[in-house]
């Protein structure tokens, strides 16, 4: 298949997986594999920072050797990927043997692993850089312009996939918090009703008793309410007149 066609097919395939419930690690692993097939590179890997500008992590690699090398980059805190992440700009290296001390620990290590040129493209959406796509070659020489464009397009897809997955996770957490807040409130309202009936109080008085008991016994209001509903805490024990 010609490269253009393979690239288009990859785009379509990846876009197709951007549905509601996708496995982001699987998607990124497939993307790393496809980089090796589509671009003139020997190995590819993706590093992504934790949300909120945290540390970089290796999330997907096209081979184990690549993964080990990427982990070394993180450990040594140097290499094309950290540089690319911190500047938000592509790192395009022609010859690893002549980097002149730019990566004193990483360069010999990568040469030993068989790579001759290393590149990284930013994973960026507007001004936010969330990681970088590493593209390593066993041959010397730079990536041609078409490969840089294609690689950047693949990096952009990966970026959208990750941000979409994070937004979905945030929504899930917020929705759970919303349900929980509502449930807590319901339990408190129910307890007010139970107490109002048992002690012949209005709702405001009931609430005041629940709150006073919670404060003086250092128990969460929601827990006091739950005990009132369960019947394990009686109206009598909440009555400040009889309460010891």
């Amino acid at each position, binding site marked *: 298949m010609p490269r253009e066609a393979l690239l288009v097919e990859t785009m379509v395939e990846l876009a197709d997986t951007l549905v509601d*419930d996708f496995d982001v690690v699987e998607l990124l692993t497939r993307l790393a594999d496809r980089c090796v097939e589509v671009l003139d590179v020997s190995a590819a890997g993706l590093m992504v920072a934790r949300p909120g500008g945290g540390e970089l992590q290796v999330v997907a690699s096209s081979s184990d050797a690549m993964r080990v090398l990427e982990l070394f980059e993180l450990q040594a805190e140097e290499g094309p990927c950290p540089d690319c992440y911190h500047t938000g700009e592509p790192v395009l290296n022609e010859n690893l043997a002549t980097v002149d001390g730019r990566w004193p620990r990483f360069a010999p290590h990568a040469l030993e692993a068989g790579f001759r040129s290393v590149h990284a493209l930013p994973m960026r959406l507007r001004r936010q850089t969330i990681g970088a796509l590493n593209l390593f070659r066993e041959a010397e020489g730079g990536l041609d312009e078409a490969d840089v464009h294609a690689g950047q397009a693949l990096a952009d897809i990966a970026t959208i996939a990750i941000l979409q997955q994070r*937004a979905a996770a945030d*929504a899930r957490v917020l*929705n759970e918090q919303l349900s929980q807040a*509502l449930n807590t409130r319901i339990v408190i*309202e*129910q307890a007010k*009703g139970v107490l109002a009936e*048992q002690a012949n109080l209005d709702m405001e008085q009931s609430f005041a008793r629940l709150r006073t008991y919670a404060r003086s016994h250092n128990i969460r209001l929601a827990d006091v309410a739950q005990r009132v*509903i369960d019947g394990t805490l009686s109206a009598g024990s909440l009555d400040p007149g009889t309460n010891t």
Partner: protein
Amino acid sequence: MAVDRRLRILSELDRATGTLCEVGARVTEMSGAGIMLMSGDLPSGSVCTTNDVSALIEELQYSLGEGPCVDAYNQKRPVLEPDLANPSESRWPAFTAPVLEAGVRAVFGFPLQVGTVRLGALNLYRDRSGPLGEDQHADALVMAGVAAQAVLAMQAGAPPGELAAELEAGGDFRYVVHQASGMVAAQLHVTVGVALIRLRAYAFANDRPLSQVAEDVVSRKLRFDGHEDRDLGA
């Protein structure tokens, strides 16, 4: 296209001093709108309603557990009834008559969701029959998405375990129903869950909104004593 719709709705929201529901009704050119939250497969309350009719539509679905929003949420898709007086399929037996009586001729429910996370449903109604136009349908879908994100964004600012102040202030979460459940539970020596079922059954049998029955219990006009449910207000 969807981006354009989204931007237009967001700019309306910026300008509007009113609520999400008012914008929802306006952009879709409907008579009214409501936003309902769901918990499990039942409504848990309203974020907003635009008028008495949309409030009734929400109240009936809350009381009866049936209607376009309940279906839209449970079926995860828009539920459209363009001609409520001559419906294409017979559904919502208890919901339909009182809503028609209030002047509703068409109702539409759109699930409120962000990705796979579902919160509730957007309810739109119109006082004349007829299907949604293509633009109206597309606007309603975008509106439901924007509303879902807006509700979650409000909750994001709330202290842990508490409902966001904006939701608390603008919404109606039928607290009186839960207060009444507590009172009836104590009257009948049953659990609050059973008490709520008794309240629902009473409301249904007497053709009254659940919230209204609950108000009577809380104001001690109505008492459940296990043999007969005496109305002390008469």
